[in-house]
């Protein structure tokens, strides 16, 4: 009868396994702190936003945002696991708690905020859906693209922009949809399509980092839309939402006040500006209100720099892309970025 005992014990074990799973219910914030690790959903295929190089190092604007959040919450920018997600997977992964934070050049729109169980935290990049074409195709405006074939990734919101744009012009067109941006861009490079479509910033990044000869291509200035990209978190943990939002604000405010990677420690110690001292946690403890360390802003800026430094590394002068700041500048310099007061 050992057979029966075996089964019974097996069933019991299974039952125990089911009921006894440590259900670490609770907000995302607690989980991140408990596991001392931030799981960050990224794209992984667009070099300027997030990309894994041959040596296994992640880089990009989104990647720096993940590191900034980890620095603020855990005090260490290295405590991040990057989870590459396709466009289709991204929100499901966030909803299900597979990632704590989604930094994946994702456009903000009403449907997403209202019905996908996620919420946009802060617009951290402004661009629009655009086109990249071959220079020798002589295309300069959208109207030149009548009858063209477009390569686009599945699930990219630019798809909808394209449908609307072409419909309003009464133009015929064809699409080739591939799953990943890298496949899409490769199809475009091979001549499968006349133009590739994505956010203009993504295209500019891809042009210099993925095309064998960047000068052969050109990103059209004309855009189909104005899209802010945002960080996303799952609905339900408002403390977490707040922390992530203020990490973004801190990056912007640091640039606004001229605080950068090199001087942040010194300013924190010696600044006489009351607002700066409060923000950097030299006097006040604003971090405590958020549930993070007192010197959280120092940790952020120390590890990734301010917003301007991040931009420069991936899009600006220090990058291959060399894209002008445009709207992605602090308000004082004509951009759209500004931070509410650190009070």
């Amino acid at each position, binding site marked *: 009868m050992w057979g029966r005992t075996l089964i019974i014990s097996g069933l019991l074990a*299974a039952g125990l396994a089911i009921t006894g799973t440590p259900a670490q219910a609770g907000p995302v914030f607690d989980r991140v702190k408990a596991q001392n690790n931030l799981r960050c959903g990224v794209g992984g295929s667009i070099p300027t936003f997030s990309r894994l190089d041959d040596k296994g190092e992640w880089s990009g604007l989104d990647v720096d945002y993940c590191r900034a959040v980890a620095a603020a919450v855990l005090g260490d920018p290295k405590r991040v696991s990057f989870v590459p997600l396709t466009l289709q997977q991204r929100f499901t992964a966030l909803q299900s708690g597979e990632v704590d934070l989604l930094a994946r050049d994702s456009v903000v729109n009403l449907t997403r905020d209202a019905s996908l*169980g996620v919420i946009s935290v802060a617009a951290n990049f402004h661009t629009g859906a655009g086109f990249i074409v071959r220079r020798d*195709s002589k295309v300069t405006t959208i109207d030149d693209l009548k009858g063209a074939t477009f390569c686009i990734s599945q699930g990219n919101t630019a*798809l*909808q922009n394209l449908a609307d744009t072409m419909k309003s012009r009464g133009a015929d067109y064809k699409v*080739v*949809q591939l*799953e990943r941006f890298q496949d899409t861009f490769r199809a475009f490079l091979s001549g499968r399509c006349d133009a590739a479509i994505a956010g203009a910033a993504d295209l500019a990044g891809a042009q210099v980092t993925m095309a064998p000869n960047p000068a052969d291509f050109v990103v059209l200035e004309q855009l189909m839309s104005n899209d802010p990209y945002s960080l996303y978190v799952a609905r339900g943990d408002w403390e977490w939402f707040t922390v992530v939002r203020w990490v973004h604000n801190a990056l912007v405010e640091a640039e606004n006040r001229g605080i950068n990677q090199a001087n942040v420690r010194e300013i924190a110690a010696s600044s006489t500006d009351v607002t700066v001292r409060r923000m950097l946690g030299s006097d006040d403890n604003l971090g405590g209100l958020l549930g993070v360390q007192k010197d959280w802003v120092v940790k952020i800026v120390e590890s990734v720099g301010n917003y301007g430094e991040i931009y420069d590394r991936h899009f600006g002068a220090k990058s291959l892309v060399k894209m002008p700041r445009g709207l992605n500048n602090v308000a004082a310099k004509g951009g759209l970025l500004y931070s509410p007061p650190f009070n």
Partner: protein
Amino acid sequence: MSGTQALPSHRWRPSGRKARAILWQGLALAVLAGGGAWLAINTMSNLEERRIGSGFGFLERPASIPIAETLIAYAPGDANLHAVAVGLLNTLLVTVLGIVLATVLGTVVGVARLSRNWPLARVTGLYIELARNVPITVHLLLWYALLQGLPAARSAISLGGTAFLSNRGLVLPAVGMPGGWLPLLAAVGVAAGLAFALHRLAARRQRWSGRRPLVWPWAAGLLLGLPACALAVQGAWPTVTLPQLKGFNFAGGTTISPELTALTLGLVVYFAAFIAEIVRGGILAVSPGQWEAGVALGLDRRRILRLVVIPQALRLIIPATTNQYLNLTKSSSLAIIIGYPDLVTVINSIITDTGQAIECIGLIMAAFLAVSVSISLLMNWFNSRMKLVER
């Protein structure tokens, strides 16, 4: 605990046996129901917590996605359900194309593999080994990479000036019919039906008298004559438009996209290798005595093959091939990795659009189950017919 069917139940521990069976099954059901309920409760609370709606209402809402290749009219703004239908039709197209071509290629290769001709047998054997020991995913990516390496549209390879091959696909002349194809199709259908009836009639006569009347000239006449009559009555000929390079793309032709081509080629080349092995096995399994018996009856090789060997081989071939057809159908879902808008690709886009993952994946599974079951039923029917023929 309980015995298997192998044991007459009353002889083995008659008492309590039934009770135990009920107990175990009850337990199994309870565990299953419990597990199911646990999952359901989790899911509900997760959906609630994340404010994800549920239900199939999204199918009625307009779809925002353009679809590259459609068999029926579709434009962004049509209902999601319509988009799903477009995807399903594309899946069916690839499946049917794949099954037909793989069967033809597989049969040819399988027979050639058995050839007494050493070079032919070796070459086909090499093909089979190469094709079936590499995953279908790799096949698809290889074909797609190969097709992407073709010249651009501007420098397309011209096939006699009527068809063009480029990395945009194969552009063939478009054939149009003023006044629609219906009369012609109807004529062909009627002719085929009549020809089949003639064949049956001839077969019956043969069974009766041992003599088979000459049928094929009549059948050919019907098959050519009726459609010709239809054309004459309609007073119009099909028009052929040659493709021409205009602006970005070829205009005026029918394009077979690289995605469809790569998917079909991949499926055909991969599954034909398996079908070839099945055909080979089936023919080998027919005992040599059957050939000898055929020869003894004075039949020639072709007749022996057609009347004696193939019907017997089919008994083995059909069930195994059915399995391969089902595998091919399921593998067509790999369209997603090369961007052919099949059911899975389209529904995947809808998931992004609407966030209704549970419903959408359910839809994919249900659709494939339905297609699989249809193929199984069809092949079972065919199989049972073959069994009758055999007697």
